[in-house]
C-alpha cells in the first residue's frame, strides 16, 4: 500500500467516523433520558393522590378548581390586551431608564406572569390560582376555605399547610431585621417571614420565588424551569424589553422540557434541586431570569392594580368620606379599647389618649398611607386546626414524594422553625438569628388589616347570613368570619378550655364561649385575649375593618371576575362550625420539629 492509498483510506475512515458520531449524537438528542421519560409517562397516567379521610377534600373541589382556572385565563387575556395596547417605553439615559411607560411595562409583565398557568408542570396552576383579586388575592374557593385550608398544587392533590396570604401591601414589608433593642423581628414575607429578601433586598420579590418551586404548589423541580418556560411565553418580547434582549441566551439541555413537566420532589430527581444540567454561566443567567421573575411580580403587586389605596378609609383620610356612626365607633375602638393598632398601625396621631373610650381623635394623620401592620410577628394562640390538609399527607404519592411524614406530630412553629432552618421552612441565611428561635416559636406575620374584608361584588360580605363569600383567616384558617376574628381577640382568655378543636364541653359552643388550647402555648401574645368588648363593639370593629377594602374611590381591577356562588344563611358567630371535626389524639410534637436546637422552651406538647 503506497502512501497515497494509505492517506485516502485514512481520510475515508475519518469521514465515516465523523458521520457515525453525528448519527449517534442525533439519535441521542432525539431520545430523552429514560428515567425522566418514564416519570412523565407516570405523570400523565398518575393516579390522583388522595391520602385524605372522607370529608377533608370538599366535594366540589374539581369543579371549583376548573372555575378558578377559567377565571385565571380570562384575566390573563385581559392582561395580554393591556400589554398590547401599551406604548413601548424608550430605553434612554445613564443609567439606562425605560422612559415614560417603563413602570407600566414591568407591572404588566408581572401581571402576565401572575396569571400564567403554563408556569406549572401540569399547566394547570398559576400564582393566581390561590390568590384571586376578588378575595384580595387570597384563597378563591369558598369550600376550600371552609375545609382543607391549604390549596391543592399542580400535582393533585398535594397541598400546602397554610392559608394563602393576601398580596396587597406585601411589597411594603422591609427586609427581615432583628431589632436588638426590642428583641423582635420585623419584615420579611410569608407567614413565617422566611422570604427575608436578603439578596434581592425585597421580601416580596423573594416571596414570589417560592411557590413556583414549592413541591405542594406550582411544583417546578428546578428554578431554571421558570426561565425555560418564560423563554417560550407569549409575553417573552415584553420580558426582553424590560430586562434585556439577551435574557434567554441560555443553552438548555434537550431534556429540559421533560424535567420541567415532572413535579418537584419526585424520587427520580434523587433530591437534586438542580436536575437541569446547565453549565455555570447558564446557571447564572437562569438565576438572573428568576430574580427578574420575582421583581416583576413584585412590581405588579406594588402597583395600583393590587395595592390600590382606594378604600373608604383612604377617602376618609382625605376628607372625602364621612365614616358612619358604627364605622367611627369601630375606628375609635380599633385604636383604643380594642388595642388593634398596637400591631395594625393606622398611621394616625393617637391624641388625646388612645385608651380613653370616649376620646375624640383630634390628631392629624401621621402617615397619609398607613399600612395597618407593624411588619412584626405574633403568636396569637390559635388552636391546631385538624382540617389542615397537611396533616394527612403522610404517605408517598405516585412520584415517591411525601409532604408530611410527621402527620399530626407536626406543629407549626412559624418563625421559630424558620430560624432553625427547620422542617417545612427555608434555610435561615443568618445564623446569628438562630439563638432567638425559642422566643418566637409559633409567631406568624402580622398581616395588613387592609382588604381583610374584600369579597366579590355579588357577595358583598365575609359574614353570614350574607349573601357572603366564605373566607379563611389567620395562618391555619381556623377562623371563618371577621366577627369570630374580633371575638377571638376579645375573649381568647375569657373562655379558654384545655381541649383540642372539636372537643369543647357540652353546653359550650366552639368559637363562641369555648376556645380550645393553643397549638403553641409558650410564646403567646398577651396584649390581646381579654379586651372587654361588648357584642356591639365587636360588630363596630368589623364595620371599621370593612372600610379598609380597596375599590371605594375607584374600581378595584379584576374584582369582577368571580363566577362562583355566594353563600347564605346562618350566623357570623358560628359561621363554618358545621365543618368542625374532632381533632384526633395528638402524638407528641415530632422531634424533627421540637428537638431541633435551640429547643422550644418551655417544651411544646
Amino acid at each position, binding site marked *: 500500500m503506497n502512501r497515497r492509498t494509505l492517506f485516502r483510506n485514512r481520510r475515508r475512515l475519518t469521514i465515516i467516523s465523523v458521520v457515525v458520531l453525528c448519527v449517534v449524537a442525533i439519535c441521542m438528542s432525539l431520545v430523552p433520558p429514560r428515567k425522566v421519560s418514564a416519570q412523565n409517562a407516570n405523570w400523565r397516567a398518575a393516579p390522583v393522590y388522595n391520602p385524605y379521610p372522607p370529608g377533608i377534600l370538599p366535594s366540589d373541589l374539581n369543579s371549583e378548581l376548573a372555575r378558578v382556572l377559567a377565571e385565571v385565563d380570562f384575566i390573563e387575556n385581559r392582561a395580554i390586551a393591556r400589554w398590547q395596547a401599551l406604548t413601548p417605553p424608550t430605553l434612554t439615559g445613564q443609567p439606562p431608564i425605560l422612559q415614560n411607560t417603563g413602570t407600566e411595562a414591568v407591572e404588566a409583565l408581572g401581571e402576565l406572569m401572575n396569571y400564567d398557568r403554563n408556569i406549572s408542570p401540569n399547566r394547570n396552576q398559576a400564582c393566581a390560582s390561590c390568590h384571586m383579586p376578588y378575595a384580595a388575592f387570597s384563597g378563591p374557593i369558598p369550600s376550600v376555605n371552609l375545609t382543607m385550608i391549604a390549596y391543592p398544587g399542580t400535582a393533585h392533590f398535594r397541598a400546602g399547610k397554610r392559608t394563602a396570604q393576601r398580596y396587597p401591601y406585601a411589597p411594603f414589608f422591609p427586609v427581615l431585621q432583628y431589632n436588638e433593642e426590642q428583641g423582635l423581628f420585623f419584615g420579611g414575607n410569608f407567614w413565617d417571614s422566611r422570604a427575608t429578601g436578603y*439578596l434581592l433586598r425585597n421580601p416580596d420579590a423573594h416571596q414570589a420565588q417560592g411557590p413556583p418551586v414549592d413541591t405542594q404548589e406550582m411544583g417546578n423541580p428546578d428554578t431554571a424551569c421558570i426561565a425555560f418556560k418564560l423563554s417560550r411565553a407569549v409575553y417573552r418580547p415584553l420580558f426582553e424589553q424590560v430586562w434585556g434582549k439577551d435574557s434567554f441566551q441560555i443553552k438548555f439541555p434537550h431534556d429540559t422540557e421533560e424535567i420541567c413537566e415532572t413535579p418537584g420532589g419526585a424520587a427520580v430527581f434523587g433530591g437534586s*434541586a*438542580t436536575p437541569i444540567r446547565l453549565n455555570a454561566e447558564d446557571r447564572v443567567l437562569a438565576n438572573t431570569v428568576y430574580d427578574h421573575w420575582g421583581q416583576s411580580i413584585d412590581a405588579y403587586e406594588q402597583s395600583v392594580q393590587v395595592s390600590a389605596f382606594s378604600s373608604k378609609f383612604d377617602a376618609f383620610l382625605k376628607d372625602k368620606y364621612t365614616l358612619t356612626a358604627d364605622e367611627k365607633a369601630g375606628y375609635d375602638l380599633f385604636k383604643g379599647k380594642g388595642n388593634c393598632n398596637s400591631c395594625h398601625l393606622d398611621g394616625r396621631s393617637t391624641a388625646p389618649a388612645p385608651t380613653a373610650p370616649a376620646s375624640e381623635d383630634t390628631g392629624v394623620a401621621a402617615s397619609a398611607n398607613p399600612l395597618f401592620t407593624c411588619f412584626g410577628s405574633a403568636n396569637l394562640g390559635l388552636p391546631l386546626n385538624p382540617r389542615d390538609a397537611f396533616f394527612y399527607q403522610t404517605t408517598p404519592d405516585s412520584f415517591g414524594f411525601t409532604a408530611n411524614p410527621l402527620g399530626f406530630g407536626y406543629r407549626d412553629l412559624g418563625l421559630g422553625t424558620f430560624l432553625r*432552618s427547620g422542617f417545612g421552612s427555608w434555610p435561615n*441565611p*443568618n445564623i446569628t438569628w438562630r439563638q432567638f428561635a425559642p422566643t418566637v416559636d409559633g409567631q406568624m406575620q402580622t398581616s395588613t388589616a387592609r382588604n381583610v374584608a374584600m369579597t366579590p361584588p355579588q357577595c358583598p360580605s365575609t359574614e353570614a347570613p350574607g349573601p357572603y363569600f366564605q373566607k379563611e383567616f389567620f395562618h391555619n384558617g381556623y377562623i371563618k368570619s371577621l366577627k369570630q376574628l374580633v371575638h377571638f381577640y376579645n375573649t381568647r382568655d375569657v373562655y379558654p378550655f384545655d381541649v383540642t378543636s372539636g372537643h369543647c364541653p357540652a353546653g359550650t359552643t366552639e368559637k363562641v364561649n369555648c376556645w380550645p388550647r393553643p397549638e403553641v402555648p409558650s410564646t403567646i401574645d398577651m396584649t390581646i385575649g381579654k379586651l372587654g368588648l361588648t357584642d356591639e363593639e365587636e360588630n363596630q370593629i368589623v364595620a371599621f375593618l370593612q372600610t379598609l377594602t380597596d375599590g371605594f374611590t375607584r374600581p378595584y381591577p379584576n374584582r369582577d371576575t368571580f363566577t362562583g356562588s355566594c353563600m347564605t344563611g346562618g350566623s357570623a358567630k358560628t359561621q363554618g362550625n358545621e365543618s368542625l371535626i374532632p381533632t384526633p389524639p395528638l402524638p407528641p410534637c415530632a422531634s424533627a420539629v421540637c428537638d431541633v436546637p435551640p429547643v422550644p422552651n418551655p417544651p411544646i406538647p
Partner: protein
Amino acid sequence: MVLGVVMITRGVSAQSATSPIYFPYPPDVIPADLAAEKTKRVNREVSRIEAEALTQLHALPINSGTAMRQVQILGKLELFDGNLLVNHLRSQKRWLRPSANPATYDQWGTAWNPNSLWSSSAPPIISTPNDNSRKG
C-alpha cells in the same frame, strides 16, 4: 471592523491619558483644604473601612448560615471600593490638580494604596454560590 475597534479603543485611551483638567471654578469656590485635609482624610478612612471589610470577609465561614452576612460584607466592600471610579484612585495624582493652585493638590491620592488591600494570594471576595444557595 477590527481596525475600527482598535481606533475607537485608542481614542478612548487617548482621552483618558491626555484630557485637560476641568476647573471652571472661581477662586474660593473649592475649599482650600479639599485635598490636603478633607479628601485625603476621607480616602484614608475609606481605605481603613475597606480593609476592615476584607478582614471581616476573610474571617467569615462561608456556609448557608452566613449568607446574609456575606451579602452585607459584599455591599460594604463595594461601597468603600475606590476602584469603581473611572479614574480609580491609583491613578488620581493628576486628577483635579489645577495649574492655578498646584500646591493644594500635590499629595492627592497618596493615602490610597489599593495594592495593600488586594494581593494575588487573597481569596475571592465571595465564593460563587452553589445552585442550591439561591433557593429558599
